[in-house]
């Protein structure tokens, strides 16, 4: 517990340092926030447009599709705020040996490598997600149990996203120039997560199974919110999150043993 408090205190200092840095480039921050807001406007617009042409997509109504957009915005807003810049910078840090600076600190290497940079602009995306959810949720009544499950699945979603990202980025210890693969997988996540999982199930069950971990990030919490997710899937999502987190942590620790700075 004492150690946990220490890390919270250190993380608060990291956020303060990042805030000081971002305030030097205020115009950049403003454009970033405006871009995020415009992305959200277009995402909502896409749902409205889509549901005008096709009112029912694999059993999902307009309100449910809007909720999906809200959950996507909430999960990615949170994950991008805390981790995005770190995962973008980490391959370069590994490749040029800059990781040494973090490894020499008396702190957990994974904590520093994945939480050293904070993206303020993505807070806007997170807030937009909450706003969309508040707008859509009020149309339906939900029990406390459903809300709790939804919250648990949101936490699991962030952990799954973080773990998959870490697993991929850790591959940079073994081979260089994985940027294209990471961009491809991010695009895959971005596109599949905003599409209801049932659309894939209808099209091709193989595609559905292959992309299952990605559906656990956005589609499953949304379905849980409407009470449409079975207990088996809820448990599978929670277990997957825990398993992926431990797997990614072990892989990180194992890979660190093979890291021999810039000369590697």
């Amino acid at each position, binding site marked *: 517990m004492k150690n946990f408090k220490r890390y919270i205190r250190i993380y608060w200092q990291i956020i303060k340092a990042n805030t000081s840095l971002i305030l030097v*480039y205020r*115009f*950049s921050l403003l*454009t*970033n926030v*405006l*871009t995020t807001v*415009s*992305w959200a406007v*277009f995402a909502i*617009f*896409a749902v409205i*447009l*889509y549901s*005008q*042409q*096709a009112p*029912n*997509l*694999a059993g999902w109504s307009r309100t449910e599709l809007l909720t999906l957009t809200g959950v996507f915005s909430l999960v990615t807003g949170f994950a991008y705020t805390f981790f995005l810049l770190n995962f973008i910078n980490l391959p370069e840090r590994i490749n040029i040996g800059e990781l040494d600076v973090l490894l020499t600190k008396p702190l957990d290497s994974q904590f520093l490598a994945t939480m050293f940079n904070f993206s303020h602009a993505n807070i806007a995306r997170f807030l937009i997600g909450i706003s969309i959810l508040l707008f859509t949720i009020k149309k339906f009544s939900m029990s406390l149990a459903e809300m709790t499950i939804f919250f648990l699945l949101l936490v699991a979603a962030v952990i799954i996203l973080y773990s998959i990202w870490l697993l991929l980025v850790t591959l940079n210890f073994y081979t260089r120039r994985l940027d294209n693969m990471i*961009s*491809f997988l991010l*695009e*895959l996540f971005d*596109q*599949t997560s905003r*599409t*209801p999982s*049932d*659309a*894939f199930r*209808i*099209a*091709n069950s193989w595609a559905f199974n292959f992309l299952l971990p990605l559906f656990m990030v956005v589609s499953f919490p949304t379905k849980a919110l409407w009470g449409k997710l079975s207990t088996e899937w809820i448990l599978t999502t929670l277990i997957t999150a825990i398993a992926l987190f431990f797997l990614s942590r072990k892989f990180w620790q194992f890979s660190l043993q093979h890291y021999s700075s810039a000369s590697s």
Partner: protein
Amino acid sequence: MLISLVRTGIALLMWLAAGNAVIGGYTKEEIISYYVVIMFAEWFLMWNPFHPIAEEIRSGYILTMLIKPLNYAKAWFAKEAGFKFTAMGILVIAAIFVFAMLKILNLRVILIPGWDWLLIIPALFAGVAISFFTTMSMVILAFWFTEVEYVNFLFWTIFIFLGGLWMPVSFLPGWLKTINMFLPFRYELSFPVEIIFHKIAGAELWTSLFMAGFWSVALLMIYRFLWKKGVKAYSAFGQ
């Protein structure tokens, strides 16, 4: 190409999952054909060297180009052309993959040739020009700002809708379709594809062709103006 494959594949899947016989004037088979064509059209028409140029400006490497007796835009145009040519092999592999997938899923691509296809050639030239000079005009902002990645992101957010990448532009509501007629996005990608599917004819076809020409010239002028101002304002590393 892989990213394009994912994006168009999922957009196609969304519309197919809707189950409607006709959407926005497109039959199910036309929608499948549209997404296959748009994917390859994107590869041919998107001349987008945004990231390497932004990096050249940010790092100061652009100075090595500025002191040479070269036209910067022409040099990058040639580089992009070379890249497109050498990457043809990837395109062939992608085409084999796409058609194999269509065969497995029992889906067909239907293209009906017509005289209006002759107009695809000027539409393609205009598409390339608009794409290239839009990118060049956006990236030149790096002369003034430290971070321009978000400008590109914003452009793509809008372009995906208005350029016909996410769905045919005929799916847009009437008021937006009218506004889109006067914006450059449609002429960058959607316009040649609309001609391929005979979704545009008569006066609208000629007006669109005129607008495509207008935007090609206008964006060239905007680029030239920004380049002149930007080079003057630029101060690289070590100065």
